[in-house]
């Protein structure tokens, strides 16, 4: 069965996250576009990607990188046309690649016609599509999310002479989900894209849809009811489509968004991400073990999404103060690398460009429970530019070759939406797809092989996990199991060689076969299984009963 026909395809996916603007410019205007992206689909297929998550590409004043949508049913002119999108979508599906698009439910841009109408008069039929108030004294329990820029969740509108509610920037008024018309309009937006053929939505900022006095206005039962309703309509009309929740919360709180398998299909596991980095720096499995042991079981049809880096900062909201200080000290000693509550750096610079550590983190990403999301450019080890402001330093043009503009665009360099990385270590002359394609031992080639191996066993994507607890805490070991398929994963988190004795007695008689080289290891017996591991080395063994 083709991946596209599977109902729970998202469980086995390898998702690649990108912004159209950053990937490939087909018309030489300095901005990536859908035609350019379509031209690069072969590359993504070759990499092993089975789904693409597109960051917002809608018409927008771009005051929040497209998360301020001014028109839900169109494409920003810089990225092409709706026809270009349709063509791209079809081309992706031809390659068995699913398309997940970003959908911002909670708010629109203040330039959106809905808001313009709503503010135009108190009698306008769309007046109640947003949350208006005569005072700024309501919903005190709601925290201000962007503390750096916003003083209140209310903003004064001089046109309608009243306050409107916004959980994010003041130019992003929150939609009023208590209004049936709003809920219908949002469903219509989703239906529009579903009918075009998109395979799923990443729903942004879902905890904030509903406001109630005396609450934090987050994760409210009414919000869940709205989400369940969306899911019901989705399943009724568009089976095998997927909803992915963005809820930067502790796993126990995020679980509510899976419901009884009747809300989201997938949700990000935010707290795991910083702990993978922490474990590596601490050379200790404790942070990863702790958070995964505190992660509740989720409904059978649901799946976590896990990631190393994305378009935002490496968020440190879901860590303790002590852990946050540690992360800052170890990964962002230079204060310019910090933003909001996180670190605005890419994977390779975070790892000091150490290939072994980059590989180990990717190994964890591909072997821990969940669907992995790869951030564009990390497969070749792209760098960042912390001097670009906001989080633009991790959103620079994809580096395709050592040629003009890194092969991203034929435009004059000054015209590019962002300067490409050009330093001698991470610049496009040194780090690019073309040169890495030529080498069997490049990071890109290694990554392709890793993905192949991951895909070779559904134990990784669907299996249970059982942690082993060898005395050596620098080693993180676990068994992923699906039916009779068992994969033993052993990771040395340390910068030095380690010996580890694993209690594999319950697998006595099995023969471990190292999955990348298909090498046979000694049969498992009664005694602890001794492995010696090089610095940052990891093994994936298929345990076979022969």
């Amino acid at each position: 069965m083709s991946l596209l026909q599977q109902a729970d395809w998202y469980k086995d996916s390898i998702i690649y996250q990108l912004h159209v603007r950053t990937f490939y410019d087909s018309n030489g205007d300095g901005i990536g576009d859908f035609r350019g992206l379509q031209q690069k689909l072969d590359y993504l297929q070759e990499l092993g990607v089975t789904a693409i998550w597109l960051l917002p590409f809608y018409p927008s004043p771009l005051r929040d990188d497209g998360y301020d949508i001014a028109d839900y049913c169109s494409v920003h002119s810089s990225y092409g046309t709706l026809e270009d999108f349709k063509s791209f979508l079809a081309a992706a599906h031809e390659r068995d690649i699913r398309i997940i698009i970003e959908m911002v439910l909670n708010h629109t841009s203040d330039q959106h016609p809905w808001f313009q109408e709503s503010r135009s008069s108190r009698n306008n039929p769309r007046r109640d599509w947003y949350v208006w108030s005569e005072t700024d004294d309501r919903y005190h329990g709601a925290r201000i999310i962007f503390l750096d820029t916003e003083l209140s969740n209310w903003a004064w509108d001089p046109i309608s002479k009243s306050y409107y509610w916004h959980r994010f920037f003041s130019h992003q008024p929150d939609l009023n989900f208590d209004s049936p018309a709003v809920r219908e309009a949002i469903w219509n937006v989703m239906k529009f894209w579903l009918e075009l053929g998109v395979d799923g939505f990443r729903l942004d900022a879902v905890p904030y849809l509903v406001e109630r006095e005396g609450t934090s206005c987050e994760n409210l039962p009414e919000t869940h009811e709205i989400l369940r309703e969306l899911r019901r309509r989705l399943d009724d009309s568009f089976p095998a489509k997927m909803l992915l929740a963005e809820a930067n919360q502790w796993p126990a709180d995020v679980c509510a968004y899976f419901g009884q398998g009747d809300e989201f299909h997938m949700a990000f596991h935010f707290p795991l991400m910083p702990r993978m980095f922490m474990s590596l720096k601490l050379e200790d499995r404790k942070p990863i073990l702790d958070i995964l042991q505190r992660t509740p079981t989720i409904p059978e049809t649901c799946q976590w999404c896990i990631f190393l880096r994305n378009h935002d900062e490496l968020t440190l909201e879901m860590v303790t103060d002590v852990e946050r200080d540690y992360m800052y000290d170890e990964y962002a000693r230079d204060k310019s690398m910090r933003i909001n509550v996180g670190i605005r750096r890419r994977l390779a610079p975070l790892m000091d460009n150490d290939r072994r550590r980059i590989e180990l983190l990717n190994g964890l990403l591909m072997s821990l429970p969940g669907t992995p999301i790869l951030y564009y450019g990390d497969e070749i080890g792209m760098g960042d530019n912390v001097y670009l402001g906001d989080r633009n330093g991790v959103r620079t043009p994809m580096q395709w070759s050592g040629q003009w503009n890194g092969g991203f665009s034929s435009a004059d360099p000054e015209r590019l939406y962002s300067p490409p990385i050009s330093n001698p270590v991470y610049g496009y002359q040194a780090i690019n797809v073309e040169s890495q394609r030529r080498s069997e031992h490049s990071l890109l080639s290694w990554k392709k092989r890793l993905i192949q191996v991951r895909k070779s066993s559904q134990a990784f994507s669907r299996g249970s996990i059982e942690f082993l607890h060898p005395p050596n805490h620098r080693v993180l070991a676990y068994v992923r199991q699906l039916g009779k398929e068992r994969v033993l994963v052993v990771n040395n988190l340390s910068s030095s060689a380690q010996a580890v004795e694993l209690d594999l007695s319950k697998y006595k008689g099995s023969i471990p076969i190292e999955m990348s080289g298909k090498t046979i290891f000694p049969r498992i017996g009664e005694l602890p299984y001794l492995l010696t591991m090089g610095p940052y080395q990891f093994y994936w063994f298929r345990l076979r009963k022969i």
Partner: protein
Amino acid sequence: MERQVSEDSFLSDDFLRQLISVGNVDLLVGILSRNDSSTIGKVVSAAEEALLRKFPRERIALVHVDGGSKDGTSEALKEASTLGASSGMGSLRTLRWISTGSDNSWQPANMVRTVLTAADLLHAKGCAVLAASTENPTPSSVESLLHPVYREDYDFVAPLYSRHKYDGLLTRNFLYPLCRALYGKPVRELRASEFAFSGRLAGYCLSRGEWQNEGLQGGAEMWLAITAMSNGFRCVQSYLGEKPRAKSNAGVVDAIRHAVNGLFWCLESTESYWLKGAAPDSLPTIGPEHKLTSESIRVERKRIFQMYKSGVAELSQILSGILNQETHAELNRLADAGEEEFRFSNALWVRIVYEFAAAYHHSVINRSHLVQAFVPIYRGRVYSFLTQHRSAGSDAMEADLENLCQEFDRQRNFFFERWRTKGQGAS
């Protein structure tokens, strides 16, 4: 009993396996125990709290070395530990205890050596040794020991306590002034049950082939301090507050013998250093000085005096082979004095100490007999000390201690001469 790797190694296979599993660390804390089930819990709690609060980022090994407890000491440790099976809440890293021990009642030196070896093998930057017999340990004292070696690059940290004036008399009358005179460094607590050292010092000490020597068995911690002082390692004293009470597993006589034997043996092993005449040197001191709050100590002065008198009389023949004639005669005269007029002068005390040390060096008699003969004389000195300082305040006590130290300095050349030349006993 744990199986040994080979005859050449005193580390068991099991302990080595545990060390491998811990891997390299920044800090190591060793707790030494023998039948300390009633107190080890508090020491464990203090150590864990200090580490979790003050060193949450560091790679840490907690090592329990037991000298053959039969009272459930190891179980008491497990019960008291909050770290659980594999990790400690509140710490960024995994924290857990590893342990080793012996059914054969290890000598304390072997226990210290085990901690040194663990620190060396795990490349610890700093290591603190704590006694499980301590009855009132505090997290701050653990931190005060570790901080100087870990953060300030010191190699040896000796504790500095507030003590009652009758507490630590052996230290006050013998260990401290003698070492200060010979090594130049005013280390107040040479024979401490809690101290810290650097990985550098651990490696150096382990490389010395002196671990089998009997002299070291009685005072490995003293040898460690003296080795640090006499080999250019950076030493410091750290105020830990009031001297913790410790449940004593050894008798008073044994304690005196071990201290005397240990120090005399140390003098021998480091003679090339102190015979050059070390210049007096100051020693940095870290932390706030603490006020003494403990209750007064009851002492049986009369009994001490009687033991002194009978001991000197019974051992007269042995003493005549150790002390020169004049000294022995003076000691005898003193022994005839009544309780009230008895005064053991600094000058006589220092001369006797030096003559005993020289006699030990020259092995004029069996060394253990020699050390045994020192005990009653020490009792006489203690009796005199108690009588003289019955109503003395802390300033007067310090002034008196300074006088004693100066007396040790004044007679130093006499001692050097006796040390270099054999055969000046009375017989």
